[in-house]
């Protein structure tokens, strides 16, 4: 999924892959999107650390598939947790959407954990380690035909906030409405996977999709191709349940109906949102959510500096406040991380996102030239411009170290020469007979992006390139780099997987099948061996085998030098002193809302 957050939290952000970030300039926020993330080494669970956090060495978070017993509620109690009170949140931005079908950004998914439930979901243990379990379903699903057919059975006792039972009709309707014309922003995996999905127009004209079959409490999906990880796909917030009876189509976006432990009491867009208890929720049906506070109050409109200062002051209701979007402001990060008392209230987490610079394969066709770009890249300077080691770590791979399948390699000697190796790059250019090769680099407008672009230009020109930097309006950046026929050789982007394997990392960005106007294979890499490897890996049912295959694909792409990996993201969150059990939700890359409690 595209990462939307660092644009706001981190100045280098203007250069990442994001769509909505450009809208909200100083920042909307959405944190990164993937299903994985881990706390930094030595700080698992979000405790403080003595030095700048490290991505390298952070634990890779494998998310296993749980059993039926794992899927059975209630959720394990949090040691020392007490019921009651209110958990507050200080946020820079509001939710763009509350209709699950329109939710893609992971932080929006995280905020709605207390009110929305899908067929599957992620159960967290005391340290934040996740397991895929059945949420509204009795287990994490049963597949047949190697993954072409998937069945899920609805749990008994699930109720909407009005007391009505969650029905099989609701299940079918949830998935059929994904095809409606007003659903334009959510992910389109299920729509693309289901047989007949390309022609189906949604349920509002009275037609059903034949590839969704409902028998009693069991729903079966027939897919075009085998998808061994379809149950992970369904854990995305976009596939949370919607009651057929209360579906108000596009208006549902403003007042969703809950089947979780809380419901929306009030929402004032851009200002605040309050969740209160849903008395029809039965904890025995829910293995994922604890429901300790009586209320959640999300307050929007706080700039990073303002929210950080409030958490530093730690007064009044701010003592019960946690961040969802708002990381520690870059201006305060040194102050916070060098203060022993404040550090106790910092949750540090490594994200699954990697920021990188795809190279346009249709324009830079010579491998040696692409390798020269990689060798010449000024990683260290860019890291400094971007805020230093507290916020990012230099990347040498497409996979983030916390993503299953990650394999450490460094094909272009970045670890030894983080500032770049212009001599080696120049030698490669000479070999290719391309000294003076022109490179057009596209980046979005922002102060930091300009500094970054200048550093890149200097480094590449030292290596023998002729560089033209082109600043592109942020509102059209992705339209322009997303065109097949564009005039750029190199552009800033970033990506993190939507669920914990390589498919949602590599298929969207590196498969030749996903080249087209508006598609996310910006490098336009269309290498037969990579395509074949992606297709093969996506069919492997064995998780360990599949992860190994995805790790190899990472290396294959880097051998083709189709991209310059830039950095992995480290996030630091400060929170109030009276919030209990602040752990990282590795499934939603966010503070685990459903595990918090208000200390007495």
């Amino acid at each position: 999924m595209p990462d939307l957050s660092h644009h706001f939290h981190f100045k280098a952000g203007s250069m990442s892959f994001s769509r909505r970030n450009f809208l909200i300039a100083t920042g909307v926020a959405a944190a990164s999107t993937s299903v994985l993330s881990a706390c930094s080494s030595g700080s698992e669970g979000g405790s403080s650390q003595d030095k700048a956090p490290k991505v390298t060495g952070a634990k890779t978070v494998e998310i296993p598939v749980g059993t039926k017993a794992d899927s059975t509620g209630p959720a394990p109690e949090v040691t020392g947790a007490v019921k009651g009170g209110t958990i507050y949140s200080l946020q820079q931005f509001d939710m763009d959407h509350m209709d699950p079908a329109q939710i893609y950004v992971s932080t929006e998914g995280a905020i709605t954990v207390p009110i929305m439930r899908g067929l599957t979901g992620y159960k967290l243990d005391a340290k934040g380690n996740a397991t895929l379990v059945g949420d509204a379903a009795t287990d994490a699903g049963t597949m047949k035909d190697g993954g072409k057919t998937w069945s899920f059975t609805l749990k008994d006792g699930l109720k909407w906030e009005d007391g009505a039972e969650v029905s099989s009709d609701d299940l079918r309707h949830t998935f059929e409405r994904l095809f409606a014309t007003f659903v334009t922003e959510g992910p389109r995996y299920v729509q693309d996977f289901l047989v007949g999905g390309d022609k189906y127009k949604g349920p509002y004209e009275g037609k059903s999709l034949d590839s969704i079959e409902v028998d009693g409490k069991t729903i079966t999906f027939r897919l075009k191709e085998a998808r061994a990880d379809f149950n992970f796909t369904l854990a995305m917030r976009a596939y949370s349940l919607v009651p057929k009876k209360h579906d108000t189509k596009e208006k549902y976006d403003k007042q969703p109906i809950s089947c979780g432990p809380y419901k929306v009491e009030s929402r004032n867009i851009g200002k605040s949102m309050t969740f209160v208890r849903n008395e029809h929720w039965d904890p025995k049906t829910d293995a994922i959510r604890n429901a300790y506070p009586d209320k959640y109050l999300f307050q929007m409109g706080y700039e990073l500096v303002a929210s950080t200062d409030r958490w530093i002051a730690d007064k009044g209701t701010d003592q019960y406040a946690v961040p969802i979007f708002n990381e520690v402001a870059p201006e305060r990060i040194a102050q916070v991380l060098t203060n022993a008392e404040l550090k106790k209230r910092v949750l540090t987490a490594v994200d699954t996102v990697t920021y990188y610079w795809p190279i346009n394969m249709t324009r830079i066709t010579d491998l040696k030239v692409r390798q020269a770009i990689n060798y010449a890249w000024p990683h260290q300077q860019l890291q400094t411009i971007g805020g230093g080691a507290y916020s990012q770590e230099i990347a040498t791979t497409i996979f983030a170290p916390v993503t299953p399948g990650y394999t450490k390699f460094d094909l272009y000697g970045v670890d030894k020469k983080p500032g770049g190796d212009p001599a080696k790059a120049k030698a490669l250019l000479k070999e290719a007979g391309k000294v003076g090769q022109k490179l057009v680099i596209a980046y979005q407008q922002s102060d930091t992006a300009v500094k970054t672009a200048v550093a890149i230009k200097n480094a590449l020109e030292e290596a023998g390139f002729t560089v033209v930097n082109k600043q592109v309006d942020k509102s059209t950046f992705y339209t322009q780099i997303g065109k097949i026929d564009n005039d750029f050789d190199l552009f800033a982007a970033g990506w993190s997987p939507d669920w914990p394997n390589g498919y949602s990392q590599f298929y969207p960005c590196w498969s030749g099948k996903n080249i087209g106007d508006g598609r996310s294979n910006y490098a336009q890499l269309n290498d037969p061996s990579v395509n074949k490897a992606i297709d093969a890996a996506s069919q492997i049912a064995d998780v360990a085998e599949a992860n190994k295959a995805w790790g190899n694909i990472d290396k294959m792409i880097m051998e083709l030098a189709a991209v310059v990996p830039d950095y992995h993201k480290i996030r630091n969150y400060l929170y109030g002193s009276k919030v209990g059990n602040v752990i990282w939700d590795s499934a939603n890359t966010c503070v685990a809302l459903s595990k918090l409690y208000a200390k007495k």
Partner: protein
Amino acid sequence: MLRFLVRRVIGALVILLIISAITFWLFYAVPRDPAMMSCGKNCTPENLAQIRKNLGIDHSIPVQYWYWLKGVFAGRDYAGYGYCDAPCFGYSFANNVPVFDTIMDRLPTTLSLAFGAAVVFLVLGVGAGMLAALKQGRFLDKFASSASLLGSSLQIYFVGYIAMYYFVAQLGWLDQPSWTPFSDDPVAWFSGLLLPWLVLAIIFTANYTRMTRSQLVEQLSEDYVRTARAKGLSRANVFFRFAWRGAMGPIVTVFGIDLGTLIGGAIITEQTFSLPGIGRLAVKSVDQSDLPMLLGVTLLAAGAIVFFNIIVDAVYALIDPRIRLA
């Protein structure tokens, strides 16, 4: 008076119409695509076309503008949201919320901020200016003049953060700036806005002190004031009945413009203190390429200035009988 008001209101509507057309044209003068912000990952041309249709931006710019105008006066039909009753200023591109509702929702914050600050800076600024004028050349005059020079050279984003750091975070004398509707909790409304009022007032007070002082000094040296004194009128009578009345004209003019500007959006103040008013809405709509919201906010800002100019003109006639509303 009625004829004057009718004529000015018609003129104001024409101005607002022109402003809306210019804003519309300027928005599209640079290459931008609002539909992209609503188009998810792997944004296909088909998906993009559907979004444009839903948002009502699948027409030429003049046609879009015509539909927008039609919506304001007669309502309009949106493919994505159904029928929108007049006055329909459209739906936000960012979150599909009606523009009119959003502005009405944010307006109380900005009105509270503007009028509250206005009370503070008028009382302090005009008061200090009067004292300085009365005590010309003495310590009080020099102190007020110096303080106003210092105040007018300060910036809200600087004073605001400093004040928050010391008076809220360190000393705890004031509450965190926040917005609570007056109807919900008058005490929280007052305490949440007190610091923004004071900071905003520091900047504006300086201007009013200087202006009041200079106007009064000028008036006090006029022949008619000397004549009044010569006729034996008391000092207070001369000061308030003659000099003060003569000095009010320019102050009222500037106050009208200041108030209109503040209501149009105290952008930096709202941003500094994280207040959810019109100013923050304006910034957000620019960042999000949210044309309908941008149009709404621009019209409100322009309307506020036009409205207060009309009020100022009317008040002028009441203050100074020599001026006739013609």
